[in-house]
């Protein structure tokens, strides 16, 4: 038996500061702290919170929560479906479980457990799908989640939230303490620049209007809010009347915000790190088509294909999902 006898957490190897290993991810992705800190805040407020993950505590930063509240942390190993059904069982005892794993495994691999054991059973479980979209770059399709919004949205009784950044996630988690429905939180990789200051206002189902415009309104969610904000600023600076809505809650969708924007602007452009089918674009399309709005819808995102692999920033550039790309898309539309 050749298994190592002593293994340590303390770096003994590389001394070059450019080198790093997995356990140092938290410091490399500052956005990762918001999840753990928001949960700790709930604990401090006396909420019966429990957190769990499936062998990804450094990727989602829950290692931080686990260190603080070892009695409230459960490690499920690589068995996501067991984790989700167990979270449902946990919730029946009056505990409010938060379980986190990559969005591809949570939203797709556990889709049926989420529907049956959580959404249908109406248990107040909070699901955290992180590294959603194409944030895992060259890890490839297995680690991409460009279907999860469509999938989670099709499930009745589930609230679906896609915060733009860490502060908004923290605010949503805080607000979730009184939210009766189970929630799917879709988040990024913790390296997104912040859009909001600490603990902004958050109301489930109430979109945030950043700018209004008559030429076009961008409706964005999640990681796309920041680049959209940059793009919209540039477009407005060049004289175009372009609005921006942060549609953090995909379900229930803020119909009023959509209809008001469609009343005001000639074009609605949805921007999401997701397939343009069935997700934010799909949800907005349903509202617009049923209301018979005059505005035209254009959906921007992953065009019903599998992403190439590359470092994430390269992919965002390639798919025009960075500020420059989004700006180009808008200019092309308005040209």
């Amino acid at each position: 038996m050749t298994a190592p006898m002593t293994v340590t957490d303390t770096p003994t190897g590389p001394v070059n500061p450019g080198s790093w290993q997995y356990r140092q991810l938290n410091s490399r992705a500052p956005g990762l702290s918001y999840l753990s800190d928001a949960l700790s805040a709930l604990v401090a407020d006396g909420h019966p919170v429990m957190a769990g993950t499936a062998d990804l505590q450094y990727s989602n930063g829950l290692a931080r929560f686990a260190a603080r509240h070892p009695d409230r942390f459960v490690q499920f190993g690589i068995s996501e479906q067991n984790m989700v059904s167990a979270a449902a069982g946990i919730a029946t005892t009056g505990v409010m479980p938060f379980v986190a794993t990559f969005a591809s495994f949570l939203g797709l691999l556990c889709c049926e457990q989420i529907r049956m054991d959580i959404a249908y059973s109406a248990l107040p479980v909070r699901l955290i799908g992180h590294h959603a979209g194409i944030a895992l770059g060259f890890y490839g399709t297995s680690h991409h989640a460009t279907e999860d919004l469509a999938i989670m949205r099709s499930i009745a009784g589930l609230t679906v939230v896609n915060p733009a950044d860490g502060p908004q996630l923290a605010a949503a988690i805080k607000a979730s303490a009184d939210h009766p429905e189970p929630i799917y939180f879709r988040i990024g990789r913790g390296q997104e620049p912040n859009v909001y200051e600490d603990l902004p206002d958050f109301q489930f189902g109430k979109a945030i209007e950043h700018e209004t415009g008559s030429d076009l309104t961008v409706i964005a969610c999640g990681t796309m809010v920041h680049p959209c904000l940059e793009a919209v600023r540039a477009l407005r600076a060049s004289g175009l009347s372009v609005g921006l809505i942060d549609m953090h809650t995909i379900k229930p969708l803020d119909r009023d915000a959509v209809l008001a924007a469609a009343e005001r602007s000639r074009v609605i452009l949805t921007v999401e790190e997701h397939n343009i089918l069935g997700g934010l674009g799909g949800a907005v399309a349903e509202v617009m088509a049923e209301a018979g709005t005059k505005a035209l819808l254009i959906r921007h995102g992953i065009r019903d294909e599998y992403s190439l692999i590359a470092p994430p920033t390269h992919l965002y550039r390639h798919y025009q999902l960075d500020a420059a790309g989004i700006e180009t898309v808008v200019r092309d539309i308005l040209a």
Partner: protein
Amino acid sequence: MPTTATAAPAPDPMGAERTLMPAPLTPETIAHLEERARHVRLETIRLIAIAKVGHYSSTFSCAELFATLYYDAMRLRHGEPRWPDRDRFLMGKGHAAVGLYPLLADWGFFPKELLDGYTRLGNPLGDHPDMTKVPGVDFSSGSIGHALSAGLGMVMGGRMMNRRFDVYVMLGDGEMQEGQVWEAAMAAAHQKAGNLIAIVDRNGYQLDGQVDEVMGIEPLAGKWRAFGWEVHEVDGHDVAALATLFRRLKQDRTREKPACIIARTLKGKGVGYMEREAGWHLGYLAPEDEAAAIAEIMGQPASPAIPREAAAQGDAR
């Protein structure tokens, strides 16, 4: 809460929970449990007659398990389906719920009249148990394979809330083929979930035929042991053996390993041809055949039913 009379004495009339120090297993208790198992079978037949299709044989194989759990092993409070310290019961084989409902009604968890509307529009009682609709159902099921995970979650939640209750999870033998069961089994052992008790209804059959032919699961005890469980094998139709085992497990508060009971049963137990015909997993008995089945369950010699015109087409569709 209406309490229509039944043959059985109402459980725990004082509404007190069961004591942890069990009374000796008297012949009266045994007779009572056997009567309750018969009650499960008879109610199953009665309710499926309303639905016009159902899982007779899956329910018959676990009638003694239901009876022993609900009238001897489990710590429950009459009329208090949400008592936080109650023992929990989950069914991986949710399709046997038709046999559970009469017991829940008996415990005063919901009015017995609801049984009469089994599967009808607006009624909460369906082929699978639904915790959002039926008081006393601790967890919904229907998708085979989730229950052990959910039961483990209850153990973990109970731990955090400082409550001590036992969690019983009844699984089908076909269910052993679902991978999630083994995820949960591994996790339960890892978590030292000593108050988690899995019961495998080893009736030898699943939907498409004999389990060993469809997808062999033996050595079953070996699998559970290799996954870190304590394993007990028992005749699943012997209420005395079952009650003794459940009592023993309940009294053992030092156990760290979760316990798996492999209950050897007959699918369709009680109705001869169901025990012998693989197809009876799902079906319907027209009134004459139903009467003969009831007679057989009541211990009367089964008189072969006389061929008759088809009963009016059922309303199961």
